[in-house]
Every structure is written in structure tokens, then in C-alpha cells.
């Protein structure tokens, strides 16, 4: 399928039941060691997961832009590369390294809604471990929702001649978090439609939300895993 028109915002939604739960990932966020939780703790985590899934509302917005790259741009100061990402210009050498082979990029903002934040606020009064557990579960849920969104984008717009980079968020490497302002300026009303906002400290609310870029190339490989 052809790539969408530049800068048009699309909506994505999933049921919580469609998410592929990744418990080991959530255990890592909960700072539980490799041996995993004991039986008592696991019961608490399972109950918390049930509560989370009942209030989890995965929603996302995304748009496509062609990419341009410039070297040694004076406005980039200590960075070597400037990336023209359509919604803004980004001075970042690590992002460049990640998507230098790409011709375009999908920008997305995804959230699982306010449910997780509410559970954290409520359950801290019931049991001190629960906020930590909800925090770990919420972080996992938003990540697996991003995985699903990425997979859907690949499916909707990809073909055998196309390759996608893994997602790369403001705050990774030298991709400044201040670009969140550009992301939210671009998405405008659409961000409000999915209940997502940015505060003055550049934190997203609800807290279990992600913004990121996914590089797109019309042939062969395009970018790798930012964690590598």
C-alpha cells in the first residue's frame, strides 16, 4: 500500500484484550530479579493486571513525513546532523545514526489512558507494593501497545520493498526531549482527542504514554534497535 499523504493525522485504537502481555518485561520494571516473583507476590501482580486491563484504553495518533538530512547546520551547534522530519527539524546524531537510511518517518503518540495513573493513586492507600506493581504493568502495557501499533503500521503501509526502523523516542540518545513540544504542537487537537497532554516539564499525561519516530525506507534495511 502507498504511504499516506504527508502530515495527515490518523487514529489508532486497540482493545486491551488485543495486547500481547509480556510479564517478564513488567517484572524488570518492578525491579524483580531474574528468578521472578514468589507465589504470594505473583498473586498480587495477577490481580493488579486484571484491574489494569479493565481500565486500559489504548489509543494512538500518527502521521507520515518524508525525511531530509543536513550536515553541519549552524543552528545545530554541537550536533553534526540535522534531520528534517516534516513536523520539525531535529538536531541529533544518534537519531541520524538510527534512521540515516530512511526516506520517511512515522511520528506517533500512544497512550493507555488515565486508568493506570488512577490505580496507582488509589492503591497506594491499600498496599505500598501496589503502586510499584501498577507502575511496572502500565509501563509494559504501553510498550506492548506500541509494538502492536508498529506492527499495524507495517501491515497497513509496508510491502516487500519497504523496511521499517524500530521506534525511537525523544529523550533517547541526543534526541532532545524538548522536541515533545514540536510533537504536541503538530498533533494539536488530535492529541486532545486521545486524552494526551504535555506539561511544562515535558512530561506526558497520562504518564503511561509514548511518542516516537519509526523510520521508513523503500528498500532493504532501515535502522536498528535503539537499545542495542
Amino acid at each position: 500500500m502507498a504511504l499516506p499523504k504527508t502530515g495527515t493525522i490518523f487514529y489508532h485504537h486497540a482493545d486491551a484484550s488485543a495486547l500481547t502481555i509480556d510479564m517478564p518485561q513488567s517484572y524488570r520494571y518492578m525491579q524483580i530479579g531474574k528468578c521472578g516473583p514468589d507465589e504470594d507476590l505473583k498473586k498480587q501482580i495477577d490481580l493488579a493486571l486484571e484491574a489494569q486491563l479493565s481500565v486500559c484504553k489504548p489509543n494512538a495518533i500518527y502521521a507520515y513525513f518524508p525525511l531530509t538530512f543536513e550536515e553541519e547546520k549552524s543552528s545545530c551547534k554541537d550536533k553534526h546532523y540535522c534531520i528534517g522530519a516534516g513536523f520539525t527539524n531535529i538536531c541529533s546524531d544518534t537519531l541520524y545514526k538510527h534512521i540515516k537510511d530512511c526516506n520517511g518517518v512515522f511520528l506517533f503518540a500512544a497512550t493507555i489512558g488515565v486508568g493506570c495513573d488512577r490505580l496507582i493513586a488509589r492503591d497506594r492507600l491499600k498496599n505500598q507494593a501496589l503502586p510499584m506493581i501498577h507502575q511496572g504493568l502500565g509501563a509494559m502495557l504501553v510498550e506492548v501497545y506500541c509494538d502492536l501499533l508498529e506492527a499495524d503500521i507495517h501491515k497497513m503501509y509496508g510491502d516487500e520493498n519497504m523496511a521499517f526502523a524500530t521506534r525511537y523516542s525523544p529523550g533517547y540518545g541526543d534526541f532532545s526531549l524538548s522536541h515533545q513540544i514540536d510533537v504536541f504542537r503538530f498533533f494539536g487537537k488530535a492529541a486532545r482527542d486521545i486524552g494526551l497532554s504535555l506539561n511544562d516539564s515535558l512530561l506526558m499525561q497520562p504518564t503511561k504514554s509514548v511518542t516516537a519516530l519509526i523510520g521508513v525506507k523503500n528498500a532493504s534495511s532501515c535502522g536498528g534497535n535503539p537499545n542495542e
Partner: protein
Amino acid sequence: MSRISIEEQLRSGKMLYFDGGTGSILQENGLQPGELPERWNLSHADFIRGLHENYYKAGANIIKTDTFGLNCLKFAEDELKQIVNAALANANAAREAIENSDHTFAKAPHYIALDIGPTGKLLKPLGDLAFEDAVDVFKSILKPAATCGGFDLVLIETMNDVYEAKAAVLAAKETTDVPIFVTTVYDENAKLLTGADPETCVALFEGLGVTAVGLNCSLGPKQMAPIVPRLVAASSIPVIVNPNAGLPRSENGKTVYDVDPDDFAECMAEIAKAGANIIGGCCGTTPAHIARMVELTKDIPAVYPEPKNLTVITSYTHAVYFKDRPILIGERINPTGKKRFKQALRDHDIDYILQEGLTQQDNHADVLDVNVGLPEIDEPSLICDVITELQGVLDLPLQIDTTDPIALERGLRLYNGKALINSVNGKQEVMDTVFPLVKKYGGVVVALLIDEDGIPETCEGRLKIAEKLYAEAEKYGLKKSDLLIDSLCMSVASDDVAGRETLKTVDAITRNYHGKTILGVSNISFGLPHREIVTAAFFQMAMQAGLSAAIINPNSIDIQKAYACHCMLSGFDEKCLDYITFATENEDRLTAGTAPATAGAAASAGVAKPGAASDTLEYFITKGLAEPAAEKTKAMIGEGVDPMVIINDHLINALNIVGKKFEEKTLFLPQLLMSAGACSAAFDVIKTHMINSGTQQQKKCKIILATVKGDIHDIGKNIVKTLLENYGFDVIDLGKDVPPETVVESCIEHHAPLVGLSALMTTTVPSMEATIKLLREKAPWAKAVVGGAVLTQEYADMIGADKYCKDAMETVGYATEVHEAWIKENS
């Protein structure tokens, strides 16, 4: 040109039509990504005028000004005013053009809606925008618009949070006199993103006095159709339906919307037949969609809704109706006769109050009474804090219970829903004060049958006051259904017929006046032995007499028994499911009559091991078993063990064992926290014992804790707080997003030797640095300890902190060092 008012038009039984999308059309015509559409009022005035005019020509009666995102968060004051003026001028120019033309619709009534969208910020406590600040943001457009004039209504639209919409409605009510329309955004499960259902939205906005209510955006007409009958069934005001033309999707590189004008119009005809009074479009709809919709629906009558006369209150998620099943109002958030609660109020111990709320919710209260009145406290301020925090952790509707009109008004403003108000009575002065507040903010009000002459002894006397209250309420436009009559019950110990006259009054109000009733049932047993038996019997009789709601202790097993049986035997409990759940959940209490479960205990029930081999307090703490730890502590106190021995020899010992395992990585953070929770439960028993026995609890030094300004993450800070408290420190928790000045003021006020600051994001570390800098200047004696995900030793050194702690246990260690030095200095 003079035109019929929009309210008259609505009452005439004729369908009114909104215009369609604006933003999506602007995008099609060159609006750049990230460009603010409101600026087109100035830069592309002709285009905007033309768009409005095209919608009028398509048959729309109401056009929306291009001001959806216009507010002071995005625009400087001067530009904002310019755009407001231009937007209104563009809309009025379009109206003049159509009305002066010979177009088919030239004579149709044409209205202009001042369009108000969401602020783009999430309100506290989930976000960082305070409610009153949100009101001011909305006023930033409403005030210049009111000065300019030229609009017939305010449309508050695309709201996915009822709290934000309430702020907008109040801003509109306090700025203009024009009708207010509100539309919210539902998902396919008929819920707002923040959880409200259609019935909640209708009750809340109708209570606030808006002219019409409905839904827009997000869904196409097909998906909206099932929500419309729910709105129509609940609403006594006209219903608005403005769907999208589906959602944008990509087709061969082109952006298309799912629903074309023909399909759109066909669906809208069904929606009109379902009872909508005002219909139009939102994103993706065009003048073509509106024209076809008008054509297909012009002969469908739009019947003005009948008054539903529902007695209904709401939280931010759901509505509670007073109709069949009696509604239970938990009375435990009230200091009357509760030493521990009074102490919590004096100490501003909000967590204790929240805990009371959660326990009542666990015990199936429908509504929570909130009374924080003590002579020595600032009630208006505290009621705001308690309401804000309560609605941050639970979703039950609240009954705001105060005799202080300032506290009542501030509480009603801040409350996220339509409140139950306790109370008004037959005294003229009180009616003059309370009824205007009910009118302005919405609500159902408890009306006490007492007046200047006191409480009449007989039913007949009380009914006269009820009639006076109904009549006076009507003068303010309030209906009988907005009042819950409280016949007042006095103690049967001092008046043999107190119970009988009260029950007669409940019966008469229910059957003869078709009114709704409420009682604080526990008064009946005051002064008698085994009060709960009498209270429960009276409660049962009152429900039999038709009582609509009772203010009770939901944790009382006798009350629960009476209620479960009444509901089942009166046919309000399908297949006896509620009764069976009650009997199963309370098996132990029904057979042994033990104390009710607490919220903490309920949460830990999943890990409790009945018949565990060990029965020591240390065992329960290390295993994180809150309820057994609390019970064991009670038993030890009962056996005469000194509370300080329990703390020092048992609790601290157990915590040290857990702490050591945590440091050795043989036990993980959630388990450490479960142990801390069990320890807190034991501490709470000791604290209650000490307050009741009048002994002072010895505490270590004071420590101020805060998550710094701009940062809303407080899990880490709360972990540190719990552990510090468990180790006996006197923690003053200032919460999250705390400005430097507040931290320093608190440090000076308490002369605290240690301040703990937490930050999660690199962007909030400068706030931490500013706080430490101010601390050095104004409170040089205090040490600053810092922590949080983003912090490192290097960062801590850079911002001038005294200590960086990687986790809560290390903070406890450092606090102990500071405490010992502080003791030396002060000895």
C-alpha cells in the same frame, strides 16, 4: 435582523442543524501541519467567512466560530483578542450574507456559537492544571468574546473530561448570559476517556443549568447511534449529536473519511427519530454532508424533552439514582465522636481520611459523606483538599456536608460531578444561602425538617416545613426531585414516639408528596446500650416506609445484614446475587462477629495464609501480611505489651530483616513495600491506641518530603515516606509538583533538619536545584537529600545536595545519621 431566540426555537419542536467540520476542511485547503487554525480568522478571513456561509447555505442553523483551540495557553493576550474579534466578525459577516441573500435558507434562523474546545491540558490530580486555573483559561476567550458580542450561544465541545467541561461551563456562566451547549466525546463503549457515561454527563451538565447536552467527534454516526437513546432517556434538555464522517484513513496515499454524505444523512435520520433535537457534523463532514442531512431530516419532528424529574447525583464516572433501591451514604468521614479522625484533621493527615473512604467503598457505600468541620481548622481550605484527594483515588459520588457556606461553595466548585449537598433546612436565612448555590452548581440537597421554631414533634408539623422547602426551592427553579427530605430522627431514648413520627413522615413524603427521603439513622439509638441492634431495626423499618437513602456506617455488619435482606426481599436483588455475595464475603463476621475488614487488609487478603506456622509480629511483617500484623499488634497491646517495645523490639527488628534481604537482593522492592505496608497497619493500631489513651507518641526528627515542581511522579517519594514513617520519623509530605517556596516555608515552619526531594525527569532537576538553592538561603540548617530515577551522585553534587540516596533504605540510613546529629545538637 431580529430572530427567534434559540431556546424558543428548540421549544417549537423544529429540528436545529449545526454546521460540520472546520479543521478537516482547513487541512484540505492548505492548513499546514502544526499551524494553528484559529489564525486563519486573520490570515484567511475570506475563506473562513465563505466556509461559514456555505454551511448556512447547506441548511445549518448554527455555525461554530473558528475558535476551538483559542485560549491563553496558546496565544498571547493581544493576539487572542484580535482573533476573537476576527472570528466573531467572520461569523457575523457570513450570517449577514445569507440573510441578505435570496437563498432558499435566507429566512431560516441563523445562530452563531462561540466555539470552545478543551485546553489541551489534563486537570489535577491526574494532570497539572488546577481546576480554577482551567476556569481562568476558558475565561481568557470568553471575556473578550463577551466584550465583543455577536454570538447567540457558547458551544463547549469535544470534551473528554467532565471536570474540564465543568470548568468551561462555570467560566461561561460567570462571563455571559447566553445559552450554553455542551458536547462530550465517547468511545465505542459509551464512555469518555476519563470514564464518564452518558447518564453522568446529562445529570452533571443539566445540574449546571446548560441548555443542551450531547456528543461530538471521535465516532461516526453509526457508532454514535446506540448512545443517543441513553442520552434522550436521561435528559430533560435537548440532545445534540455531531458525529465525524468516520475517521481518516489512508487509501492509495489519499486521506479519505469512511462516511459519505448519503450514508451520513441516512444515519442522522435514524438519530433524529431516536429523539435528537440538534444535529450536525464534526471532523470530516462538509457542507455536502450537512445539506444531505437537512434534506433527509427536515420533516422529522424534534420534540422538546419532557422533564424526567430524576433525583440523581454523580461522580466523574457514574450516576447514582434515588429511585428503587435505597442508597447507602457512608458517614465515616466525619469527626463527630471520633478522636482518631479529629487528630487526622488537625494533622492534615489526608491519607487517613482517604483510607476511611476506601474502606467504605469496599463495604459497598454508594455515596460518601464528607464532613471536615472542626472549630480550630480552616474548613473551606480543608474541604477542598479532602474533596480533591478523594476524587483522585475513588469514584464514588460525594455528599458535601458543611454548615459553612464558604466551604460549601468552594467544595461544590471543585467537586468533579453533581454533588449531594448536606444540607438546607426550613430557616429562611439558610434557604436564602443554600438554594442559590444548588442552582448555580447543580446538586441534590438534603432538606432538614427544622426551621426557626425547631423540629416539630409531630409528622404534621414536619410536613409543613417540607412544603415550605419545596415552595422556596421552586422559586430558584429547583424541582421537588432536587430535594431529599430528612425527617430528622431524634433518640428514642429521650422521646418514646421519636421513631414513630419520623417513620410516619418518611411514609407521607414518599406516598403523598411523591418526594424522596433520607435519614441519618444512627441518631435513633443514641444513649442506648447495644446501639447497633436498635439502629439496624430502625433502618429496616425506615426502608419499609419508603426511605430513599440512609446515612449509615457501611462497615457495620448489622447495617449490612438489614440492607442485604431488605434489598433481596423487596425485589431489588436479582437472583439474590448481592445477598449471596454479602453472605460469602462476610462468612467470618456473620458467624463470629469480628471487626470489619479494612482497605489495607482487603488488599492483602490475597496473600494471607490462614493457619501459618508462625504467629509472631515479625513473621507477619516480613511476609507483608497487613491484617494479621494489625490484629497481632492489637492482641499484644491487649496483653499489656508497651507500644514502644512493640515498635523497637518487633517492628523495627522485622523491618531491618527485610531491609537487609533487600540490600542482599534476595527480596525485591514490591516485597519490601508489602512489609512496609504491614508495618504501617501495625503502626496505625499503635497510633490509635495512643490517641485514645491520651499518650504522646515519641517521634524522631521532622523530615520534609516533596516531589519537586513540575514533576508529577510520586511513587518513589511515597516509598521513602512509608519507610521513614515506619522507622519513626515525623514526615511532612508536601506531595508532588511542589514549588521551592513551599518546601522552604514548610522547612522553616517545622524547623526540620532534613529535606528530601525527588525528581524523575531531567527536565525537573533544575526545580530541584532551585529548591536547594532557596533552602541554603532561607533555612541553612537543613540538609537536603535527593533521589529519583534520573538522579546520580554526579547530578546530586552538581546541584549542591548534601546526599544522594539510591533507594529508600539508604534514605532511612541517612535520615538516622541526621537524626542522631540533631539529637546531639539539641541535647
